[in-house]
């Protein structure tokens, strides 16, 4: 593992990671319906100043994971298992009051659609000051001044005027900036960004990512970046967890993941993204089928119906056990029976995660 990939703060701040998720599982059980397990035994941790990516196609359980961490899933009809610790404090099963106090102050979230995440009939100013009044015990006047300062910090010009405006009067990028300002108003230790750029124009996407990097990464906030876009991962994440059908199927640091994806699914994701270093003529190959083709993990590898490497022993019936998530070299984990392999690296090349 390359040393530069290590988050700088990690070594300094040391022991307890900001966020520790262990064996998190979420089951939706509505009356009269078959229960569905949306998140299944997910474990990861995020240290201060570190950016961890959760990557996967739509429907793989990324948003449900983030809502479970924030304690935002409804109580009724949802079972959450496992452990989520924020700075060592257990959140699963914590009382609502405790969670509410932590949300917005210690942990915060930025959502996909900035327009619908803002109340259309309430001014930006009211929505920003609300957080300050709630968590920082500010008076109205003080909060307004601070709100203007916050908008200024996220790069919104003429913040005093903007505070009086309503969400529809701002551009998409401005709205997301305002939401980032609200999320960071109390300098939380953890920020979860759930596809924060998906609803934005391509040119704006890069600006928002740059803003997040400036505000979060440089200040030592732990960032969980949820995305289906590997371009976002490449630009921001230190470590990446690839999810499929509710489970983590591959974990690696960013460089290793891009250089040598081991899971055929990860390989497929990378192959379907345009690459700058690839020749013009190289065609993009999307993964065949869709996420709906997954089989239950209990029956075998959920990706098997779409996998080019699949063999009989990918099914539980044949192998006698489900596919486990296993150590796959330093800093890597893998859930696959027949991973992608690479020719032995010649001397001098990065040797991490080399194939068998």
């Amino acid at each position, binding site marked *: 593992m390359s040393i530069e990939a290590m988050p700088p703060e990690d070594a300094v701040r040391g022991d307890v990671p900001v966020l520790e998720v262990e064996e998190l599982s979420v089951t939706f059980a509505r009356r009269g319906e078959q229960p569905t397990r949306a998140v299944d035994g997910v474990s990861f941790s995020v240290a201060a100043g570190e950016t961890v990516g959760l990557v996967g196609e739509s429907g793989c359980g990324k948003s449900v994971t983030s809502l479970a961490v*924030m304690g*935002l899933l409804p109580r009724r009809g949802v079972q959450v298992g496992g452990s989520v610790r924020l700075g060592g404090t257990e959140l699963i099963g914590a009382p609502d009051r405790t969670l*509410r*106090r*932590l*949300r*917005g*102050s210690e942990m*915060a*979230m930025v*959502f996909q*659609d900035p327009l*619908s*995440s*803002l*109340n*259309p*009939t*309430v*001014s930006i100013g*009211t*929505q920003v000051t*609300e*957080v300050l009044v*709630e*968590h920082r015990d500010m008076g109205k006047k003080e909060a307004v001044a601070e709100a203007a300062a916050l908008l200024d910090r996220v790069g919104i010009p003429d913040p005093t005027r903007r505070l009086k*405006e*309503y*969400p*529809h*009067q701002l551009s998409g990028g401005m709205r997301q900036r305002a*939401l980032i300002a*609200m*999320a960071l108003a109390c300098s939380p230790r953890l920020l979860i960004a759930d596809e924060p750029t998906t609803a934005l124009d391509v040119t704006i996407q890069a600006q928002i990512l740059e803003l997040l990097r400036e505000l979060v990464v440089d200040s030592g906030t732990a960032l969980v970046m949820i995305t289906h876009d590997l371009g976002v991962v490449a630009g921001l994440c230190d470590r990446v967890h690839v999810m499929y059908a509710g489970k983590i199927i591959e974990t690696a640091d960013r460089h290793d993941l891009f250089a040598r994806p081991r899971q055929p699914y990860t390989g497929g994701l990378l192959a379907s993204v345009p690459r700058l270093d690839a020749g013009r003529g190289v065609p993009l190959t999307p993964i065949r089928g869709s996420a709906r083709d997954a089989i239950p993990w209990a029956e075998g590898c959920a990706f098997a119906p779409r996998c080019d490497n699949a063999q009989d022993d990918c099914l539980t019936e044949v192998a006698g056990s489900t596919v486990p998530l296993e150590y796959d070299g330093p800093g890597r984990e893998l859930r696959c029976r027949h991973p992608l392999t690479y020719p032995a690296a010649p001397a001098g090349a990065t040797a991490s995660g080399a194939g068998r």
Partner: protein
Amino acid sequence: MGDVRRQRIDELAARAGRVPEGEGGVSLVRSAFRRLRRNPVAILGAVIVVVFLVVAAFAPWLAPRDPLAQTLLSEVRPGAIPGPQEGFPLGADQLGRDLLSRLVYGSRQSLLIGVVSTVLGAVVGMAVGVLAGAFGGWVDTVVMRFVDILLSIPSLLMAISISVLLGQNQYALMIAIAVTQVPVFARLLRGSMLAQRGSDYVLAARALGVRHGRIVFGHVLPNSLSPVIVQATLSLATAIIEAAALSFLGLGDPDIARPEWGAMLATAQAFLSVRPALAVWPALCIIVVALGFTLLGESLREALDPKFRR
């Protein structure tokens, strides 16, 4: 019967807080108003409503005569009631009183009962709806079960029972009609609050640790009000018709010093063969004013609904 009413209410509730692309805040109200002004149906409804409101407000100045003075009593004979003539544009009633003046004064009573009972019904209904919508869970279940039972009772039947129970006076009448409106507003507000509670901005506010009370009263409630405003306008029409119906049945205000359309209609029944105009005019007033409120309410609904936007 109850099912149809529930469905109608729920449809209206589902439209709450849907904001057209590129609108919001103050401009939302402004653009709804602009749409309203361009709609001829809305203008017709508004004109009717305003005319009746003005007539009711300025009745003493607008009525040509004293509505109680039996000026033409001497001309009333069995089988003949004086028709339109000089100074009596619509003729007189069976006691020789000027019909036009009685209609003008009658508007006061009808509109007053309509407005007071609708406001009362809306306020109490909204309080019940907020209770259910804010707490959810078993509070919601219990309250809404009760509301649905009320909704399944035909409203006129309920109004009759209540006004019989409360005795015969105009306040009993207002309360009786208000009670029939309570479940409508309760279900409506609860439904639209529920729709809002599942919205992204509520989730985002919760993710920021904004407290429940503030989310309910600062975010959810204001966005849930537009169907309530629409319903209130429509309810005015219902309330006026119900008030007239109750008076017609003899359950209205017993004070004969206050002419009222429903009571006039009831009295006119006995003279239908002699002078049908005595029934036609108050009936027409009831229908037209109810139509005015309905037209205004329906166009308000369209104006506030992004789906109808051109």
